[in-house]
């Protein structure tokens, strides 16, 4: 029995080993899981998520707030890349699967230890974003939201479980400030069309121009930074992006 083989954290890299955190890609967003949910955005404990930056006695008030949210962050690939690209910005990943959230937590902790001063601005929380996003973020708080390779829910009767829908876009528009950007990507063409149609048809979002897409350093990360994206690239698959800006509704 190898000690190395059974330990959840690799002795060499000190990073958590994925095989102990494997979970099915699916999770039913309709079922009521039992995880704590903050009563309101002012109840989110920043000292738990960003201990080096906030002490537990810090009141909310004027202090910095989370600006980036990775909805369905999976194993955390995007967040880790964003953390060093935007070291002054606070960001959080939201994931519904328990084991996967644990993995990301361990990964962030390990990275913080190995790279003093870095990765202090990134955290993860286990929650159902389809129900509780307004509990975490106040009006116009976010400047970027990410929906990378969401569950396609192929069957028509399951389309209501899709994380991007006209109704849910109302909530995402609420937490995104005007000018904020929503990034979506998938390798499933039908889902790509669906997300694009939802965004195109929503009065509070408008498409980003080609020029802006070229100029945005984050766009390249969409397909390269996550495990899912890397897998698609390895298999020579195609990806479908829809990147939109939050605008004020026309009167």
């Amino acid at each position, binding site marked *: 029995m190898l000690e190395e083989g059974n330990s959840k954290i690799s002795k060499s890299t000190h990073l958590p080993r994925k095989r102990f955190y494997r979970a099915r890609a699916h999770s039913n967003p309709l079922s*009521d899981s039992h995880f704590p949910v903050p*009563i309101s955005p002012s109840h989110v404990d920043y000292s738990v998520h960003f201990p080096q930056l906030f002490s537990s006695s810090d009141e909310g008030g004027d202090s910095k707030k989370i600006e980036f949210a990775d909805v369905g962050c999976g194993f955390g690939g995007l967040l880790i890349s964003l953390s060093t690209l935007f070291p002054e910005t606070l960001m959080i990943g939201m994931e519904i699967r328990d084991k996967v959230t644990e993995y990301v937590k361990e990964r962030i902790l390990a990275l913080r230890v190995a790279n003093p001063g870095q990765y202090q601005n990134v955290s993860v929380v286990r929650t159902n974003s389809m129900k509780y996003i307004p509990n975490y973020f106040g009006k116009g708080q976010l400047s970027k939201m990410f929906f990378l390779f969401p569950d396609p829910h192929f069957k028509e009767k399951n389309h209501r479980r899709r994380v991007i829908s006209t109704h849910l876009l109302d909530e995402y*528009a*609420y937490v995104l400030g005007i000018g904020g950007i929503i990034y979506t990507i998938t390798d499933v063409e039908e889902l790509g069309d669906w997300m694009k149609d939802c965004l195109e048809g929503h009065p509070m979002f408008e498409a980003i121009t080609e020029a802006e897409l070229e100029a945005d350093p984050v766009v390249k990360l969409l397909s390269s930074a996550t495990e899912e994206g890397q897998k698609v690239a390895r298999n020579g698959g195609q990806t479908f992006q829809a990147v939109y800006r939050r605008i004020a509704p026309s009167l």
Partner: protein
Amino acid sequence: MEEPAIEEGDNHRDVEVAPALISVHPDHKFIVVSIGSDLRVFDLQGGSSVTLVDDSSGPLHKDSIRAIRFGAEGKLFVSAGDDKLVKIWNANSWHCISTVCSEKRVSAVAISKDGLFVCFADKFGVVWALNLDGFDENQVLVDKKAAPVLAHYCSIITSLEFSLDGRFIISADRDFKIRVSVFPKKPLDGAHEIQSFCLGHTEFVSCLAFVCAPDYPEGFLVSGSGDSTVRLWDITSGSLLDTCEVGSQAGFLESNGREEEHYSAVIDLCTTPDGTLVAAAIQSLQGIMLLNCNVSAKSLSIAKVVSITGGSFIPTSLGTASCAEFLWMVTGVSTLNGLDSHSLARVRVISGFKISGADSVEHEPTMLEDDEIPGGEKLLEKLQGSVSIENKVFSAAAEAVKMAMCNLLIKKQYSADKREFRKRTRNDKKIKQ
């Protein structure tokens, strides 16, 4: 496999009792009580019972009515519930002018202030709107289709209200949330702009009401919840102005010392649109709690508790009209086990429901005796189903309502077998074109 399914089916029905509801015409012309699938209307001016006229399919509602409401001008009345039908009535002639089908069971209804739109919310969390264009007093509206306007993801919507100026539509759900959305000129295109979320309740939100505030044309929102509090909100910002712990207050008034926290949910709230008095019905409180909203201080405080003597009367619904100083209350449930009589409800009235002056209640609110209430015995006969109701009926009803409150808003846990059985009857599959 069949046996357990049927047994559980029975339990399912037992638990799903529907509380009686009451609604008062804004000009105090009519009083409506709904109990089970029965809709009972009494004409206060004429002093007689009203016969409803509905030309559509068969008996009025086929299953428990869950929401009833008069339009702000008193021209319209809406009833909807478990039979997935939304019926719109002409509130003068009491003809049903439109029956709309909902995909899911309806849990709340509201009518826009200008009377142009009827909104209803279902148990899946979607709010729908119906255009009442072409509303002619005497005509039955042609097949109306409702459009989805907004949604609370997978959450039962418990209450729908429009702000006093009609600019916002407020929806409250089982998952402690209150959402304030801008009600647009064309609501059928969707109410996409969320003004705010009023977050603070720690249990399901059960009821919403508005109090008048001079500098705030939209009014202040008051909400009641399973967490035994009534809260005051500024809907433009979503900020919590004040919290009133009504549960603990009700607890002190119980004769037995047992702290039944679980059963102190706020059942219903009622306000007068031009006043600042809030009436609250609280589980386990045999009476009504009157709260005063101090608009300048933005606070809510308990003004008085009016006890209801003579029987375990816990109101299941409240209603009032601004022009008259009566607070109407009803209690009852749709089906009482072991009682074969048709559904019985008990109606009581408090007079003096008015505030004049900043913080004081000028006329003492008093419970009226049966012979003192407007409409008298005839009203009671029609709305209650019988003139005198035995007290033991209401002990049973009070227990059933307690049960219903707990179960209505707590997610049902089904056994694995029952889940499989239910999957067979899913109705959200693709409809063949």
